[in-house]
């Protein structure tokens, strides 16, 4: 069941900027993990698998926020939650046991290599899903 009002509410306004940032992370994380896995997977398999997982989550979020249907908003809620748990778990693990991460991932030290955007992004995503569901549909 499509809802054009909800779709527009999700992907316009601040949602537009959120989608842009997610798209940048989807592109960079995908490219980065593809190169890492293709060229030096055995150096740090855990880190590179986590990079790939992050890449998939960023792609899912970008697509779901852009689609903006009820179903895709639900998927985005789940993926942002997984993303937040992931960045907190990997961030904490990389601080406590740096030797487990010989090469860094997008989520290492809460995304310090990416200006800590990785830890802020899922929070903004979840807030935006909440907020855009209450905003009256723009004409």
């Amino acid at each position, binding site marked *: 069941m499509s809802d054009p009002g909800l779709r527009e509410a999700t992907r316009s306004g601040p949602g537009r900027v959120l989608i842009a940032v997610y*798209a940048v992370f989807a592109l960079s994380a995908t490219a980065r993990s593809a190169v890492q896995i293709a060229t030096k997977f055995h150096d740090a398999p855990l880190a590179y698998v986590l990079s790939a997982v992050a890449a998939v989550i960023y792609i899912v979020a970008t697509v779901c926020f852009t689609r903006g249907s009820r179903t895709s908003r639900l998927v985005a809620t789940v993926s942002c939650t997984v993303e937040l748990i992931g960045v907190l778990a990997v961030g904490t693990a990389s601080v406590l046991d740096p030797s487990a991460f010989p090469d860094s991932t997008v989520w290492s030290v809460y995304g310090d290599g990416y200006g800590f955007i990785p830890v802020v992004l899922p929070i903004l995503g979840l807030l935006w899903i909440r907020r855009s569901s209450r905003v009256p549909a723009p004409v």
Partner: protein
Amino acid sequence: MVHPLDTILLIASLVCAVWSLVLLMLSRPVGKRWLLGALLLIELALLVQAVLGVVQLAMTHRHVSGVVFVGYLIGSLLILPAATWWSVTEKSRWGVGVLLVGCLVIPVIIVRMNQVWSGV
């Protein structure tokens, strides 16, 4: 990557980022057309940089990770057209917010590209 073009591009894209931020704050897209014009110039300069970069890569004797380097060169060309497309289809002032994101990505790509070039 020692030619001054990358420094000029870095500064120009940061200036456009500030410009986008001001337009976002003003909540009225005054002079957005000029901003888009400036972004077009930056895109053309990025194209020149991409060509020069490939030539430099072909001529260097040092070991440079070619795939990653060319990946960044190609990536740098995609950002502004994508940001502009995603921005102009937005009616509200948040459209320039998308341009702001695009303008901030360019310096990051340039810095990373220089790191790849010098083998960091």
